[in-house]
């Protein structure tokens, strides 16, 4: 309890000491949210295990630590990031980098986009296109009372802003590479806003990386608006080192007949907590939330997914799978909330996990709250071992045990990967997952960034 107060006071102090600097280096619109947010944080604080939503994840070792905070980027840091710029030759994307959560000023290659498409720094966009952003910024949190979302709103200044105007579908995916690098232990918080207007579409790839062997804590919020009949595909690849804690909050707001697919693939990281909120705010909206994580050593991966069915005739599907080796632990919480007018809802959820050792541990919890009477909902969860019969079957054909185990794990994982719509990306992920399962993942082929192993 004392530690808890100490933690909360520490982050409150951090705010109080730095708010002037933060505000000066930020946009007025974003600043206008800070006061309420820090008040919200004072009430809620850093989530503890007493909080139902964080029952299986202990954040204390990560928050009870002195970090350098990084509020204002240094241009010289951006130069460092340039060395790491992605060199993806066979995956044709619009590529941009967030360095410690800040949009690189030299992400210049995507400034010239046709048809009113904008991809830029949120900070700059909030100054230059305030009337566009004011309609969306902070509007999709739906009364979320997670202290970490409050903390992000109170202190974040920059991130990615993407705007796809009505009727436009971006011709190739946008790839956002999150690079975290510092000479000291560091806390960073960034904020993304993505607006996909009516009948528009975009595929987004997000890669999370750490580049220096320091302790890192990242707390990131992304808000996404998907307009009527629009589509949004997001694919996230997390590949951070064991001394990194990554907490993401993604709020996806969907209008009528929109389609969303989210793929969250966690390859590596000390502690990873993904909060993914799907809000279906119009008839005929369709949401798919997929996730895969591979954890070993002392890693902990927690996926918290929530789907809100507000209108009738919407469909949603959650599929999350995990492979846990050594002492790794994991959690899955899948919530389906069907509001009373959301008749003819179809909502499915499945969570399957494989424990490779006796020490690995997984907690899984479905949470269904259904207030409409004409719905189809199902959920299922398993925590088990690799199928001995399948293993023997493969061995009996002459496949070595090690290879058979790998093939089984890969087959298990592929059920998630096969939902990636960009073929080249699916193949890339297959390769990465195989490397990870073999214990050979030292480099993310997607980014060509060398991540130091800790």
């Amino acid at each position, binding site marked *: 309890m004392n530690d808890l107060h100490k933690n909360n006071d520490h982050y409150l102090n951090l705010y109080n000491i730095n708010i002037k600097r933060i505000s000066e280096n930020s946009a007025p619109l974003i600043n206008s949210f800070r006061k309420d947010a820090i008040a919200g944080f004072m009430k809620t604080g850093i989530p503890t295990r007493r909080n139902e939503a964080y029952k299986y994840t202990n954040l204390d070792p990560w928050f009870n630590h002195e970090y350098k905070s990084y509020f204002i980027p240094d241009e010289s840091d951006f130069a460092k990031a340039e060395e790491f710029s992605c060199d993806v030759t066979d995956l044709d994307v619009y590529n941009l980098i967030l360095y410690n959560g800040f949009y690189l000023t030299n992400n210049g290659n995507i400034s010239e986009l046709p048809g009113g498409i904008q991809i830029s720094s949120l900070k700059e966009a909030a100054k230059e296109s305030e009337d566009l952003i004011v309609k969306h910024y902070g509007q999709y949190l739906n009364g979320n009372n997670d202290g970490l979302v409050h903390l992000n709103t109170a202190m974040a200044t920059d991130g990615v802003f993407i705007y796809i105007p009505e009727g436009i579908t971006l011709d190739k995916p946008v790839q956002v590479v999150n690079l975290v690098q510092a000479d000291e232990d560091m806390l960073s918080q960034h904020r993304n806003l993505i607006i996909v207007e009516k009948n528009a579409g975009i595929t987004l790839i997000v890669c999370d990386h750490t580049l220096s062997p320091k302790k890192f804590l990242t707390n990131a919020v992304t808000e996404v608006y998907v307009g009527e009949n629009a589509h949004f595909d997001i694919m996230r690849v997390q590949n951070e080192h064991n001394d990194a804690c990554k907490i993401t909050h993604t709020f996806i707001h969907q209008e009528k007949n929109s389609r969303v697919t989210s793929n969250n693939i966690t390859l590596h990281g000390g502690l990873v907590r993904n909060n993914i909120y799907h809000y279906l705010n119009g008839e005929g909206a369709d949401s798919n939330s997929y996730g895969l994580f591979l954890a070993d050593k002392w890693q902990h991966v927690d996926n918290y997914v929530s789907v809100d069915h507000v209108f009738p005739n919407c469909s949603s599907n959650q599929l999350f799978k995990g492979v846990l080796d050594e002492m790794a632990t994991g959690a899955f919480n899948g919530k389906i909330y069907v509001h009373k007018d959301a008749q003819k809802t179809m909502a499915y959820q499945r969570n399957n996990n494989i424990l490779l050792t006796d020490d690995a541990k997984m907690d899984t919890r479905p949470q269904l709250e259904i207030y409409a009477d004409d719905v189809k909902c199902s959920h299922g969860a398993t925590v088990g071992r690799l199928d001995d019969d399948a293993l023997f079957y*493969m*061995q009996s*054909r002459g496949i070595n045990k090690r290879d058979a185990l790998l*093939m089984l794990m890969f087959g298990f994982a592929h059920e998630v990967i096969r939902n990636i719509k960009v073929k080249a990306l699916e193949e890339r992920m297959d390769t990465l997952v195989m490397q990870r399962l073999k214990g050979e993942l030292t480099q993310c082929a997607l980014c060509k960034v060398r991540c130091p192993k800790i």
Partner: protein
Amino acid sequence: MKDNRNNTIMLIIKDLKAAVGGKTILKGISIEVKPGEIHAIMGPNGSGKSTLAAVIAGREFVEVTEGTVTYEGRNLLDMAPEDRAKEGIFLGFQYPIEIPGVSMVNFMKTAVNEQRKHKGLEPLSASEFLKLMSEKKELVEINSALANRSVNEGFSGGEKKKNEIFQMSLLEPKLAILDETDSGLDIDALRIVANGVNMLKRADNATIVITHYQRLLDYIIPDVVHVLYDGRIVKTAGKELAIELEAKGYDWIKQSVEKNKPS
């Protein structure tokens, strides 16, 4: 001279006793199989037929308590299941396993190339393998679509059994053990499975057909028929034994065994 003759026997099972979960299932079995032979092992349910197949293939849940199994002059019981397969032993499963997420192509390509590697052969390229696969598919009349799916996933009972024969045709084993491959098959599927076995038959390979019913033996003519009852071979004869069993059922075997039991 004696050694020489022994070497021409492919499989020698001698006084084999085995237990599952502490319960003795096989109570002393001796069988010799020579290249070119087809043996049928028949017997009522629960007599130990599948346990015998499991011992030869190397399932860990069966504990061999006594006896030896010698395959081509080597102690088979010391070999890992995958090594037995590489040395040419194939088990056709009574209940083939579904493996979601592992494609038939990837599964069999890995298996074939593992075995080629073991023999010192170059691995087949993807296109060579696909060519081989389409040749063999015709042999067992297996639907092309099935070969593109995950291993046995969503296959019907008959398709799973045909798939076993398909795998056998790709691996060309020296010793195939078909465990109740006929169970649950309609007459067309039975004919296809039997055809596959007969077409794969060579002078230098052998087959052990484990079955409850005689009907598969209308299509696959055995050289030797063994009757297994209560963990022992109680009768060994030529193909006419199968016909006799079909006509008279297993009761007369049971009765004669019980009668001869030392009291």
